[in-house]
């Protein structure tokens, strides 16, 4: 399968001596929905900055669909669309103008730029705001405008740096649906986010970066399998006076109709349900106490740096 992004021994030391990246390697395959996660200051935005030429690397190599970002930068940049973490458009310009200008910077003729601008503004629910100065848009609209701008040249690789930060849940879900749609149509996506449920539900593969090194790089499924135990919160229809004794499971009574049960990787939910049924405890609903990826993430980033 074609490699969409190849990063080899990438390093970055800032002028103040801070070593943000210590020679990282990872690859993203074409068609992937890839999560690049890490705590604040881990090196995610530096990595993205280097890929899209906003940060000068200290060492290493970056290729986008086989095009080196140094020796073949025009072709590498054509493959790439970036949605940065902070708003970086002209507040005085209108969304339609912002998109048409961006298309122009990629050499797209005016007529095609207008057609695509209309398509993406409609797709992202901004067509009615096309002539509104962008400073008057809401936070969610500004995020969607940056996504539309990143897509105007129809890149094969889209990088989103915390695209849903500060966006309400309804808008976040509609953005997820849109990203899944373009991913299904063939666009490779790299996502950084602090919402780990977002990464877990959207991404197929993952790299976790911490203190400038890759702490984990695997498939989401493989990573989640590393979770040794999960804590489930179970709402029951039966009123309980004390925590039920469930052989092999640790169980805590939260309130009369809620219990928390620890399920080890070797155990199954079927066993748990069987034990609850034996005691005539009827389950109303079941959920994870914390996001599964969050548990692993906290564990991985808590490790001391190399």
């Amino acid at each position: 399968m074609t490699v969409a992004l190849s990063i080899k021994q990438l390093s970055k030391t800032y002028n103040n001596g801070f070593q943000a990246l210590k020679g990282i390697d990872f690859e993203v395959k074409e068609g992937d929905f890839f999560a690049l996660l890490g705590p604040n200051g881990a090196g995610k935005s530096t990595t993205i900055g280097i890929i899209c030429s906003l940060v000068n690397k200290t060492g290493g190599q970056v290729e986008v669909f086989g095009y080196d970002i140094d020796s073949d930068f025009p072709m590498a940049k054509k493959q790439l669309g970036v949605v940065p973490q902070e708003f970086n458009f002209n507040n005085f310009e209108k969304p339609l103008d912002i998109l048409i200008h961006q298309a122009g910077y990629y050499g797209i003729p005016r007529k095609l730029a207008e057609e695509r601008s209309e398509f993406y503004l409609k797709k992202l629910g901004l067509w009615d705001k096309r002539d509104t100065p962008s400073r008057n848009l809401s936070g969610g609209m500004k995020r969607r405008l940056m996504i539309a701008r990143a897509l105007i040249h129809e890149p094969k690789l889209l990088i989103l740096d915390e695209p849903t930060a500060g966006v309400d849940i309804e808008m976040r879900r509609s953005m997820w649906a849109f990203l899944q749609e373009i991913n299904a149509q063939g666009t490779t996506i790299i996502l950084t986010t602090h919402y780990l449920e977002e990464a877990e539900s959207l991404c197929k593969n993952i790299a976790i970066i911490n203190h400038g090194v890759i702490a984990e790089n695997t498939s989401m499924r493989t990573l989640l399998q590393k979770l040794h135990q999960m804590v489930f919160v179970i709402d029951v229809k039966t009123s309980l006076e004390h925590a039920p004794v469930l052989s092999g499971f640790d169980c805590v009574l939260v309130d009369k109709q809620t219990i928390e049960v620890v399920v080890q990787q070797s155990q199954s939910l079927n066993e748990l349900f069987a034990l609850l049924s034996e005691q005539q405890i009827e389950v109303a609903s079941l959920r994870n106490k914390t996001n599964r990826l969050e548990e692993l993430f906290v564990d991985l980033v808590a490790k001391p740096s190399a």
Partner: protein
Amino acid sequence: MNLTEQWIAFSTILSREIKRFMRIWMQTLLPPVITITLYFIIFGSLIGARIGEMGGFSYMEFVVPGLIMMAVITNSYSNVVSSFYGAKFQRFVEELLVSPTPNYIVLWGVVMGGVCRGLLVGLIVTIVATFFADLRVESPLLTITIVLMTSVLFSLAGFINAVFANSFDDISIVPTFVLTPLIYLGGVFYSTELLPEFWAGVSQLNPMLYIVNAFRHGVLGVSDINIELALIIVAGFTVVAYSYAMHLLNSGKRLRQ
């Protein structure tokens, strides 16, 4: 990018720059025209009438070329410095930096935006000047050449200033403390023949003297300096400024982290 794509990128940057200064014409076009018109009225018409001839021309005719050039210089410079620093400040310069547009296209697009504003203000001021003086152009080729070269040079200078600026204060320091004094002392309002020998010699070190006098020679046919030397000096400064601006873009200094 192929040549067609590069042309589209260039025309996009240029049209964005023109739209910007046209959208805020109350800040960009009107003030310089009012200021220069006041110069015409006060220095040219009221005071100038008492001064008499200078360099064989009425004082009004003598100051008009210098004032037109002053408008071209300040507007070319301020357009690029404020536009590019604004793009840096709001970070939308990143739209260009992440795109495949070659750096020289970015530079020429921004610089030509400054040239367009400089020439437009210069043209308006020239039209206003016709109400005060009987303007004739002795050497159209020299006039157009020197005004274009000057406009490019000061647009490039504005770009360099914008790259180094860290605040809006930084973009007004050079126009206020460097450009304006050099222009005023560059023979806009007087001929260096009036100066004592020592100060006339010092004036030779002022590049504005060559620019103003070359333009005056194009319009009136008289000059305090050697025209070939003036063209060489302006061309030399332009080459140096262009090379340095390209170096800043290529290295990403103060633009990329």
